[in-house]
């Protein structure tokens, strides 16, 4: 398959899979800020509105355009499951290799 064909197939499948979301999440009206259940009113760990520290005093939208470096260590959080899985996979690989080597060694001694 050529690169362009693959890219087109990928884009189409992305849209098809993404549109499954319409079925999975159910239909709804346009989301309004402050509506119960909307992401806009869920509090963060500190009890403040999550990511709404960028709102002005009258509630107007002012997007934060700078990074909050104090929250940078939080980037490690999604890497934690990776580390756990990686340790597991590496461990399994090591055991498998050791078994394989042992089997090969026993085979070579029996042939002698």
């Amino acid at each position, binding site marked *: *398959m050529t*690169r362009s064909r*693959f*890219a087109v197939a*990928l*884009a189409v*499948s*992305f*849209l098809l*899979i*993404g*549109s*499954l*979301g319409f079925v*999975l*999440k*159910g*239909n*709804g*009206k*346009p*989301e309004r800020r402050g*509506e119960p*259940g*909307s*992401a806009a009113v869920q509090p*963060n760990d500190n009890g403040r509105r*999550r*990511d709404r520290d*960028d709102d002005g005093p009258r509630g107007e*939208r002012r*997007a*934060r*355009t*700078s*990074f*909050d*470096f104090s*929250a*940078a260590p*939080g*980037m*490690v*959080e*999604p*890497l934690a*499951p*990776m580390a*756990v*899985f*990686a340790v*597991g*996979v*590496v461990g399994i*690989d090591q055991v498998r290799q050791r078994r394989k080597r042992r089997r090969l060694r026993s085979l070579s001694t029996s042939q002698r």
Partner: protein
Amino acid sequence: VLDLSLLAGFATTTNKRFTGDRWHEWFGVGLLIALGIHIVRHRQWVSAQTRHLARNLRTRVGFKWLVNVSLYVLMSLTLFSGVLASEYLGGDLGIGYKPQQGWGGFHEQCSELVKIPVGLHVALSWRWIWSMLRRTGRRIAPARGNAGPVSA
């Protein structure tokens, strides 16, 4: 470099407190493009493994294929719902788009779930990642050696 930056980009995008809403959305768009490039670059693996799926289903390669497919499905759902739930992208691009109800919550659920196959995907590719890192290190080392002052 692309694959490592993908991992770093994923970690950054998921940390919304670090990026803020607007950058979170733009990082997501960047991730979507980078993921597309990543999959297209590995298209030969994808098509070869899909062709020989029945034979490899019980092997590690088959398991990896299943992990990758679930990762692709979940990541597609996450990114698609993220675009539809975006509050700033429409305005930044000059499109009068308003986020639809339900997509924000769905996006968050998918983004939590996607961390599992991402972790498995990286973990299952550790040999490839390690060999690429070593190869890159080897390539950089002689280049540094050559760049030093030449003594006559």
